[in-house]
C-alpha cells in the first residue's frame, strides 16, 4: 500500500517544528529516520494529518563529550554512533548494542531520537540508554526539561513526550574506563527484533568485588526492564559463577515477557536466564581484564 495524503513540512529549525506541533498537536507525526514510521504510513496504520520531517534540522546530529557524559543529538544516525571512535572509546556498550539494530540500510537512516521516541519494547537503544542511566532532553513551547530514561519509557510504545514536545538529545553518564560491559540478544536472524536482549555493565572495587552494576532487559516487558533485584544481589559481591547464575535467575523471575509467534512467555523467561548469565560473564571478564 501507499501512504494516505498528509500536509508535509520540512522545517530547518527546531522552533519552526515546535510551532507546527503546536498547530497540529496529536494530528502530527514527526518523521526522523522513518525506519518505523514509514512502514506504518505505507500500511496506513498511521494516517497523520501532518508530517513534520525533521531531517533538515542538521544541528541536532552530533556526538560530544561534556561533563562526564556523552551527549548525542536526537537526529544522529545509528551508523554514526556505530562507527564513532568517541563512542567506542567512552561508551563501548552503546557501539555494541547499535550493531544489533536491523541491518546496514536501517542503520544508515534510523536515528537515536526516533528509536527512543518510538519505544519498541524489543529495541536495542531504549534498553542500552536505560542501562547507562541516560537522561533525555526534551524541548517544548515552555522550554527544556530533562527526563530520566527509566521514567521516559512508560508503557508499550508509550513515552513521556507531550504532543507539542520534541526529543532533542540524550545524555549518557560515562562509566569508568575499567568497567566491563556486554550486550546480548537472541533472534532467529540477524537484524530481526530481539526475542530477548540484555545490556549489562559492571565496575569493580579494589577487592575485585562488584562496586556497581546495571542490568536492563529488552523484549520481555512493555518497557526496558531494569533487573533491580539482580543488580542488588551483585553489588558488593565477588562475581562467582554461582552469584551470576542467581542474578540471572532473578532477572528471569522479574520480567513479564509476551507470548507470540517468536516464542512463548516461558521460552523467553528461560532465554533471559541464559543471556543474562552470558552477559554478566562477559562483562565481569572484561572488568577483570581491565583491572589487571
Amino acid at each position: 500500500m501507499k501512504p494516505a495524503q498528509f500536509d508535509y513540512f520540512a522545517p530547518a529549525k527546531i522552533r519552526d517544528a515546535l510551532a507546527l506541533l503546536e498547530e497540529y498537536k496529536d494530528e502530527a507525526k514527526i518523521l526522523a529516520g522513518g525506519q518505523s514510521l514509514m512502514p506504518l504510513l505505507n500500511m496506513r496504520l498511521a494516517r497523520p494529518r501532518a508530517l513534520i520531517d525533521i531531517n533538515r534540522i542538521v544541528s541536532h546530529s552530533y556526538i560530544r563529550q561534556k561533563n562526564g557524559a556523552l551527549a548525542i543529538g536526537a537526529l544522529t544516525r545509528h551508523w554514526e554512533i556505530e562507527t564513532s571512535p568517541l563512542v567506542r572509546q567512552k561508551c563501548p556498550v552503546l557501539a555494541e548494542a547499535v550493531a544489533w539494530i536491523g541491518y546496514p540500510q536501517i542503520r544508515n537512516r534510523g536515528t537515536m531520537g526516533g528509536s527512543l521516541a518510538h519505544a519498541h519494547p524489543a529495541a536495542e537503544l531504549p534498553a542500552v540508554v536505560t542501562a547507562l542511566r541516560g537522561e533525555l532532553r526534551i524541548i517544548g513551547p515552555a522550554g527544556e526539561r530533562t527526563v530520566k530514561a527509566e521514567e521516559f519509557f512508560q508503557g508499550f510504545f508509550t513515552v513521556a513526550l507531550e504532543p507539542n514536545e520534541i526529543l532533542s538529545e540524550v545524555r549518557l553518564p560515562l562509566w569508568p574506563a575499567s568497567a566491563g560491559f556486554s550486550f546480548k540478544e537472541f533472534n532467529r536472524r540477524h537484524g530481526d527484533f530481539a526475542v530477548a536482549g540484555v545490556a549489562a555493565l559492571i565496575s569493580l572495587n579494589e577487592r575485585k568485588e562488584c562496586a556497581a552494576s546495571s542490568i536492563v532487559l529488552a523484549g520481555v516487558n512493555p518497557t526496558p526492564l531494569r533487573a533491580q533485584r539482580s543488580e542488588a544481589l551483585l553489588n558488593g559481591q565477588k562475581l562467582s559463577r554461582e552469584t551470576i547464575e542467581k542474578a540471572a535467575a532473578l532477572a528471569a523471575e522479574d520480567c513479564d515477557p509476551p507470548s507470540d509467534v517468536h516464542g512463548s512467555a516461558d521460552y523467553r523467561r528461560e532465554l533471559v536466564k541464559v543471556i543474562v548469565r552470558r552477559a554478566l560473564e562477559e562483562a565481569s571478564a572484561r572488568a577483570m581484564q581491565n583491572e589487571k
Partner: protein
Amino acid sequence: MAQRYPIKVNVNGITYEKTVEARTLLVDFLREDLALTGTHVGCEQGACGACTVIMNGRTAQSCLMLAVQADGAEILTVEGLADGAALHPIQQAFLDNHALQCGFCTPGVLLSAHALLKENSHPTEEEIRLGISGHICRCTGYVNIVKAIQVAAEKGAENR
C-alpha cells in the same frame, strides 16, 4: 489536487527537476516518474531490501523514504552500475557465479555489495553475510551471492 513539491535529484549522474506529491515514495518516483524500473518494490515495509539504492554514498531502502526527502541528493540505482554494455565487476561476478535466479532481489543486493566493497575492499564471509543481511532472496540463493561478492572483491571491484 494535492500540493506538489519541486525537487532536484541527481540519479546515476543525471540531474532531474520534477514536482512530486509529498506522499510519493522514492521508489515509486524512480520507477514511475523516471522510468528506472530496475529498483524493485517488494514488501513496502523495509523488510526485504529489494528497493535498496545508494543515496549520498550509503544504502537506503527507497520504500522507506519520500521522494521529496531526496531533494538535493545523489542517488545510484542498479541502472547506474554498468558502463554502457560493460557490466560492473560485481554484476559480472554475479553472472559468472550463478548468483541470481529469478532476479527480483538482485538490483538491491548488487547495491549493498557495492557499498560494502567501497567500505571494506576485502570482507570476510561473515562481513559479507552481515553486509547483505538486509536482503531476502526467496530463491534462497545466498551461497552463490556470497561467493560472487568474494570473487568481485578478489578482482578489485572496489576500484570502480
